[in-house]
């Protein structure tokens, strides 16, 4: 395994152009430390606060087989202390200074952040740098936390038929790629996760050359550079760091179906998904077309599906379309149809397919397209209001393989999408043979019973 690691040279800096910082017009600058840690600074001086984030380019889709949930478990365990900090002390120091902190895990990233008064940034960096390689774990703190993540799974998934249904649908969407595994983990594997599993994962992936520092708020690039040099630069890079290369999906050659039944389901619905291309560095055109396609179909009462199914035919109570293009590997294009009362799931699904076919025949509502482009342009103004939201947008993009330049080009790429681009994307992605269709409903035999 070590040999293989060395053969696959670490390329953690792939998302950035190494070299000097350059600030663009909206107060954003980037640079890379000698140890490979990338740094992004977003200046916003409206409020005397900063958001300090460290993102690792590792997530649930990078977990070794049989240890699903370890990325998220480790995220919890990162608060359990180092040689310099007792368990829980990290958050204690943040709170004692009026700040807030938290962490999050997805398939492609794990992130840690604190929001504090700007002059506390050095302390945040000192503590975050400390736990980048200094985590100490023992069973007496790790095992109760395993109970916590099992309770978290119970709360988020096992108590919610809709969440269990989505988990099953995603599992059959991805036959081979790890996006089919739940981020929180499969319960039977979570129950077996050990402290050593967590430490092994930690040592493999937590290193400056696998991390991105994002500081947003009332700071300057020079301040961040000097602090990052002081706190993060001394941490040695991990020369063994592997390139993230995940197994790919085989071509889908048959439509797949899943029916999930639970007596607590009061409102049945149809969920359809298709494997779809994601945003890639320097190549965001198809993802932009799919983004506009999803909005043309599903946004507001003048979205195509809403018009056809909710307003005209009244076969649906609700329709929704969602496409998340910011992803390291191929993503999904999702449609939900909640049938109107008295309309079966079968008929709701048939109405959806008829509407999609009509959309691809009938061309595009150009007024709606123009309106959407105006809204996307305005979004660039509205999103300036949330410093943390901007920081997060960059963090997600950079851990999904995109560059700062890609993020900044995205609004323009969206504006340049044409009617033909959208129809081509629709014909490429919305193919019945490569779909996954799920039905969520109450068990048929007792569907009419009232359950309390």
């Amino acid at each position, binding site marked *: 395994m070590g040999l293989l690691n060395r053969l696959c040279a670490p390329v953690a800096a792939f998302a950035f152009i190494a070299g000097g910082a350059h600030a663009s017009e909206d107060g954003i600058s980037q640079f890379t430390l000698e140890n490979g840690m990338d740094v992004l600074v977003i200046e916003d001086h*409206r*409020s*005397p*606060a900063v958001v300090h984030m460290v993102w690792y380019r590792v997530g649930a889709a990078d977990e070794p087989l049989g240890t699903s949930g370890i990325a998220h478990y480790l995220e919890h365990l990162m608060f359990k202390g180092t*040689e*310099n*900090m*007792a368990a829980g*002390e990290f*958050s*204690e*120091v943040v*709170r*004692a*200074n*009026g*700040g807030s902190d938290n962490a999050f895990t997805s398939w492609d990233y794990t992130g840690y952040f604190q*929001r504090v*008064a*700007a002059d*506390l940034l050095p*302390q945040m960096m*000192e503590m975050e740098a400390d736990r980048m390689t200094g985590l100490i774990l023992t069973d007496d703190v790790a*095992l*109760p936390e395993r*109970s*916590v993540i099992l*309770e*978290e799974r*119970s*709360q*988020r998934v096992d*108590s919610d038929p809709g969440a269990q249904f989505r988990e099953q649908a995603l599992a059959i969407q991805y036959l081979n790629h790890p996006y089919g595994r739940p981020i929180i983990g499969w319960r039977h594997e979570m129950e077996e996760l050990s402290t050593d599993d967590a430490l092994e994962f930690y040592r493999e992936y937590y290193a400056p050359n696998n991390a991105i520092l994002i500081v947003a708020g009332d700071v300057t690039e020079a301040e961040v550079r000097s602090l990052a040099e002081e706190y993060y630069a001394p941490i040695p890079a991990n020369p063994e760091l592997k390139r993230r290369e995940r197994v790919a999906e085989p071509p889908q050659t048959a439509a797949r179906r899943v029916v999930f039944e639970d007596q*607590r389901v*009061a*409102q049945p619905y149809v969920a359809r998904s298709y494997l779809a291309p994601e945003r890639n560095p320097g190549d965001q055109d198809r993802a932009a077309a799919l983004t506009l396609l999803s909005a043309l179909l599903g946004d507001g009462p*003048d979205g195509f599906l809403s*018009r056809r199914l909710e*307003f005209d035919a*009244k076969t649906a*109570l*609700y329709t929704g379309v969602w496409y998340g293009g910011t992803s390291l590997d191929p993503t999904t294009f999702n449609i939900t149809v*909640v049938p*109107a*009362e008295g309309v079966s799931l079968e008929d709701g699904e048939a109405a959806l397919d008829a509407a999609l076919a009509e959309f691809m025949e009938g061309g595009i509502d150009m*007024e709606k397209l123009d*309106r*959407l482009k*105006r*809204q996307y342009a*305005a*979004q660039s*103004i*509205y999103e*300036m*209001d*949330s*410093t943390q939201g901007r920081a997060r947008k960059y963090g997600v993009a950079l851990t999904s393989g995109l560059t700062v330049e890609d993020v900044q080009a995205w609004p323009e790429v969206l504006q340049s999408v044409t009617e033909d681009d959208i129809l081509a994307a629709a014909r490429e992605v919305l193919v019945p043979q490569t779909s996954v269709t799920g039905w969520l409903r109450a068990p048929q035999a007792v569907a009419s019973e009232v*359950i*309390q």
Partner: protein
Amino acid sequence: MIRFAKPAALSLVLTVTAALPSFASVDIAEVETPGGLTAWLVEEPTIPFVALEIVFKGGTSLDAPEKLGAVNLMTALIEEGAGDLDARAFAAARDDLAASFRFSASDDSVSVSARFLVDTTDEAMDLLHSALTEPRFDADAVERVRAQVLSGLRSDAEDPNAIAGRTFAEAVFGDHPYARAGDGTPDTVAALTRDDLMAAFKGAIARDRVTIAAAGDISPEALSSLLDSLLADLPETGTALPGPATISFDGSTTVIDFPTPQSVISFGQPGIARDDDDFFAAYVLNQILGGGGFGSRLTEEVRVKRGLTYGIYSYLANKDLADLYVGGASTANARAAETIEVVRAEWARMAEEGPTQAELDAAKTYLIGGYPLRFDSNASIANILVGMQLDDLTPEYLETRNDRVAAVTLDDVKRVAAELLDPDELTFIVVGQPEGLAPGN
């Protein structure tokens, strides 16, 4: 390589007051319009948009018992067509302006959250004016949205959190409107007519109960004339607001049998008024007991030490017409009884002993240091400003609030803990199949 250890980290705490950011950037202007409205404004010229919050007191509590759900359905329909525009045309006009309006109803208010770009302010406000003065309540829109509300009610009937909330309200609020289902029941919602919705609209959206705040790129003068145009045509008075609720907590544990692997636990007891002299001491007390997440006693005892839950919380719930102290958690059925025992024991321990000086200091520095950080966007500033007015505070509160937190002493918190916390009154609702707890009371 790591240069600090525990003592250094502690010194950070001690220097925190010197590190506090000031409110220099949050300068509240009180705008009195010629038309007689009052609004609070924080001008922030760096981003060319405005966040506007308008709150009408009353909300779903204004519903008559046989018309439950009228205010909720009405609120959901405000944006579904107004003036010359049907639902789709209204949405298109709004989206053309890249504006957004959000209408929501709670048991205390109907709220309007608007954001709009500076260069299309007039057009956006014309559209919002139309929604607030001439909603259409078209038959097809009413039926479409009614079906969505009914679907939500069916789902709520199978949702342990919703069941817990409803059971809790019924147990605590007696015959006050707070005890009723704000979204209505399937029967009352099905029976609502267009006349009912129009009556709910006229009763809920009126000038005698409005509170307004804005933040963004707009001058006091421009805001003043904007508001007079926007709200001049509203009725002067609406439906009479209900009186204060009488609340009762009997210290019982009620189990609602529901097939789910986790029990949803809600608990509560009487709270303390927002204008009570001891409110700040109680606020700090709750931060220590259950309001602070990690570091608070409930989280440490229930989550960190025992791994019983993913999350447990408590908060002072100061509603317009009742003051409660409530909390909640979700836990495995097998350990629900243990969780309740721990919560009750912590409640009693805090009532008897109060917090330690260290806990008090940590809670105070958190609350003091965190306050300025809340004012970080137009959207959050507009929200805070409207909330301050609803709490009958003055703009000067920004300058005095942290001093009042700082002034809370250990003796204050111990005394308030002993007076306020009552483990015998602490009442639990459990939805699930908890082991060792029988269904019923």
